[in-house]
């Protein structure tokens, strides 16, 4: 892993590396170098499989984190590339020409997080949701409970109990607090 980090660091400037396991590491890098890093990893280092492309909403820092997880099947090593994007009008270069499967992930991210990938096939079509009118639902400033209460009819009689205190009361009623 450290060798890969060194090799990659010789060609492109990299951020920090987090070693999750002996065969799984995450490398942060600037969005400008993502394409060359992906090309290098795929064609030179043997990371031929795009496992997933996903996003995390770091609303406190006002950024989206995109994670491109790649796998080297023969060496049984995974590496994740992390790219930070500003949340405002988030847009990222499409990588569907490197891995065609990325187009599906990008379509999902477009719908669920509102991250645009200009040029990606069918990226502006509806993917899972139909007739969605609110802000993208996976964004953390979308309040799913409030939306559910406002839009879907509710049946009375639902009670929620804290499992720990409820079971304590049920099993040991004489112990008190």
């Amino acid at each position, binding site marked *: 892993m450290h060798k890969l980090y060194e090799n990659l660091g010789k060609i492109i400037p990299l951020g920090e590396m987090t070693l999750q396991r002996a065969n799984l590491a995450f490398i942060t890098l600037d969005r400008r170098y993502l394409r060359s890093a992906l090309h290098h990893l795929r064609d030179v280092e043997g990371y031929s499989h795009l496992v997933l492309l996903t996003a995390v909403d770091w609303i406190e820092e006002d950024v989206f984190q995109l994670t491109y997880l790649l796998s080297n099947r023969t060496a049984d090593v995974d590496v994740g590339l992390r790219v930070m994007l500003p949340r405002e009008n988030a847009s990222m270069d499409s990588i569907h020409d490197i891995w065609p499967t990325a187009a599906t992930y990008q379509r999902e991210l477009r719908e669920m997080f509102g991250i645009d990938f200009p040029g990606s096939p069918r990226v502006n079509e509806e993917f899972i949701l139909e007739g969605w009118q609110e802000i993208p639902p996976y964004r953390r400033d979308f309040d799913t409970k409030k939306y559910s209460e406002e839009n879907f009819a509710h*049946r009375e009689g639902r009670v929620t109990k804290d499992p720990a205190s409820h079971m304590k009361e049920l099993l040991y009623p004489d112990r008190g607090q």
Partner: protein
Amino acid sequence: MKEELEKRVVKGPDGFEFEVEPLQDYYCAEAPKAHLPVYSKIVEGLFNWARSESIWILGFGTGCGAIEMRPLMTPRFDAYRFGIQWRPTPRQANLLMISGYLSVKTLKRAIRAYEQMQSPKYVVGLGSCTINGGMYWDSYNTIKKLDDYMPVDLFIAGCMPRPEALLAGFNDLKKIIKAGKAEGANKYAENFDWYKANQKSVIKDWDMPDYNW
């Protein structure tokens, strides 16, 4: 509106041009009507007995609960001995099982399937998701109260109910049908506007005719 539902001119293979208006040509615009019981109580009782002993389920699994229906078809639980079988199309079925959570997108398909079924028809809500939302009570995309959108004859509680619970539920449904209380299709026809308003309040991109059988 979707492109394929719009009015357009189509050129046939023989070069003949004709106009197609899918919403008018392919669907019935007439609202459903309530069917009154037949003139004699004895005859209606006989009909209800026959209906209760031939429950044909539409093979449409809407949520995770559909997995509990698979063992029912196979020899271990063998629902066929109760006159219950699964059918591939809505036209052949008279029982719609809503098996678990129902997202807004699936609700649209479930309504279309329900409306295509011939009356008398029954709906069973399976699992706590259909009753009060279950574990998806705060989801942005699942309905919480099934009987607002279609008339439900019976709920089977559980998350998920086991096949034994489903068999007990089917037997309860038979009792309801035999007692002449499973009037869901008539209830739907009588309160059609109320059901449609509820359905349209959650399905934001309503792009089908109001009644599409």
